[in-house]
């Protein structure tokens, strides 16, 4: 449905999007995960025909983004990162307006607006000015405005920014439902949990480059599947524990990390009995121990050397 090849977008000499490539199948919910300034919004800008690309190609539903922008626009709905609504109009008038400029009108539009307002749970606030809405309500109306013309592809640019956990859960459930109904969605976020929980596939983007693409398991397997067992013991015992641990089954390496010892091992569970035995023999406490399984966070650290939320 969406094919992106080697896409480049420059601002002056700065490459905001630096040759990214990915594909999204019909009905797929694709997550674009990256920190602030990674190039997510810019990518969506190019895909939605608002920004001209400086290199590479992209097409949506067979329509080239540069060659047939009109065809692309008919297919897509965009929910921008900002609340792109008329704050001084009420919810209903906003949706009516966005419907009308897409050529909708009459009864059909009226019904569509009512349905959307119900969908985003704003039915009771239809005649209330948007400026009086809470952050979550505005986000939901912003989403509804992107759906007004019944698009086949939806771009969601950080739709959960600035709202509380409860509102976020509701919004995510709503987006999940839309995907279940067969909408193709590109969802950008810098929240790892959202991408993990919601998306079928994830592209990790950093400094304009796609550093990894795949489903969650694919991505994790990219960093190897070693567990890390961290244990805190008095520093004078480090040597003793290191030499002991190196003899245990499956252990790859042992290193010191911020005052703790980190044991890299294929299966963290396998070293627990010998470790327990060693600790008991030394008369030490078991409480100071953690097992870290590889996840997207560690993948992200591995790929970019930075945390997602620095």
């Amino acid at each position, binding site marked *: 449905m969406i094919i992106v090849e080697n896409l480049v977008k420059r601002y002056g000499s700065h490459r905001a999007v630096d040759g990214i490539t990915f594909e999204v199948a019909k009905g797929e919910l694709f997550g674009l995960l990256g920190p602030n300034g990674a190039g997510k919004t810019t990518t969506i800008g190019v895909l939605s025909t*608002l920004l*001209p690309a400086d290199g590479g190609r992209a097409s949506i539903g067979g329509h080239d983004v540069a060659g047939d922008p009109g065809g692309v626009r008919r297919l897509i709905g965009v929910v921008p990162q900002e609340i792109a609504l*008329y704050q001084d109009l009420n919810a209903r008038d906003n949706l009516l307006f966005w419907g*009308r*400029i897409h050529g909708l009108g009459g009864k059909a539009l009226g019904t569509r607006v009512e349905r959307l307002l119900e969908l985003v749970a704003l039915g009771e606030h239809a005649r209330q000015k948007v400026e009086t809405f809470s952050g979550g309500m505005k986000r939901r109306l912003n989403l509804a405005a992107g759906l007004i013309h019944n698009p086949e592809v939806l771009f969601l640019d950080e739709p959960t920014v600035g709202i509380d956990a409860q509102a976020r859960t509701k919004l995510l459930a709503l987006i999940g439902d839309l995907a279940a109904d067969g909408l193709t969605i590109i969802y950008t976020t810098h929240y790892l949990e959202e991408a993990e929980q919601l998306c079928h596939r994830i592209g990790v983007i950093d400094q304009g480059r796609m550093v990894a693409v795949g489903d969650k398991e694919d991505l994790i397997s990219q960093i190897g599947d070693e567990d890390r067992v961290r244990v805190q013991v008095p520093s004078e015992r480090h040597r003793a524990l290191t030499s002991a641990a190196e003899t245990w089954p499956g252990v790859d390496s042992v290193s010191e990390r911020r005052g703790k010892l980190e044991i890299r091992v294929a299966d963290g569970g396998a070293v627990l009995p010998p470790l327990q035995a060693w600790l008991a023999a030394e008369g030490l406490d078991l409480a100071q121990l953690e097992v870290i399984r590889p996840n997207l966070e560690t993948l992200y650290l591995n790929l970019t050397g930075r945390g997602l939320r620095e």
Partner: protein
Amino acid sequence: MRILVLVRKDLLRAWRDRRAFVVNLLLPLLLTFIMGLSFGGGIFGKSGISVIPLVAVGEDVPSALRDRLAEQLAETDFFALEWADSTEARRRVTRGEAAAAVVLPPGAVGDYFRGEELRIDVWKDPGRPLKAGIVEQVLQRALRQVQAGEAGYRALWPDDEESMPPGAEEDTWSDLFAGDMNTVWKRWRRVGGEGGFTEVGEWFLARMDHQVALSDAMAESRLDLAVTDAAATPDVAESREINLFSYFLPGFSVFFLMFGVAASARDLHRERAAGTLQRQLLAPLGTNHIMTAKWLSSVVQGAAQMLVLLVAGAVLFRVDLGPDSWSLLTLVVLTATAAASFFMMLAVVTPNEKVMDNVSTTVVLVAAMVGGNFVPVDAMPAWITYVGRWVFNYWSNSGFSLVMVRGESLAHDLQPAVVLAAMTVGYGLLALAFTAWQRRRGGLL
């Protein structure tokens, strides 16, 4: 028509926006009301005044300035001014040949330009239905002209020794009021020749602050008027009655229209910042649609605002809107279209709302000053009207003076209408071309 959908949205927003309603309509109405009251006309007082013969005394007033003032007063249709010495003046007033003598004591004009109050004695004929207030109004008006000249002049040429030769002050002023653009123009060229055009531009911008300050100063009167009765004489027949306010109402309405239209054009920046402009571009709409719609809603709002003010003037103060209402309506619409095109262009070349705000406020004030919104165009120093020709409001004001004051139809003198239409198209196309270019580079977002 999708354009109408966009226009409808803007009008709906304007209608719901109480603040815009107050700023663009109630405030101008209130100010017009106060102005109208201070001119004392319509249902609140005397309806008009007649053409009045005046005699002026000012031994040390430069002759160029004398001629200019006499000419201007004659153009107002209110007064016929002649200069005389003080004995002759007193004789004329007592004989009833002049309604009043306006006396500028020796040195008064020079003192005025040194920042003192202008001391004027008026000897009036007690048999005339001439109110001191009216004389005062007219003198204030003449003074504002002088002050406008001063403000404009100082804005263009700094106060330093070089541009204002020491001891030549009065010559400079008389040059200015005799409309001697040559001398004035030479200075401009000299500045341009030395530093190149950019420097002149920057330097000109720096002057603008000064000009805004001066425009404030202009509004403030520095007139000290002493009216004394001369000997009684028989009544003289009244002639044509004119409401003084009809001179000022169109100027005020055009002035407020400029602010109103600038505010609608500024909405382009707000929509861009809010992302609603980008969202519109995702619909099957081109930038031309969007710009045209914005333009059209500015036109509708501007024209409506102006009509309300004019009609309020006519109803409340019996301002004569002229015999030809089609001409008036056409002029109102052309003023609104030219203003909308102009401010759209300003909106697209400015990078954001803040810059647009600052630029448009400055432009409105300067344009209002040189285009004749504070001082009627037919009563301005010649060189200001020369500069004024480049701003659309000059042509609106000329048009209104034609239609409302002289009571002619627009067809009588096509120039104002044609220039306004040309400016509408010219500025409009520039705005569209610039937007299309920006859109291609992706700079619109």
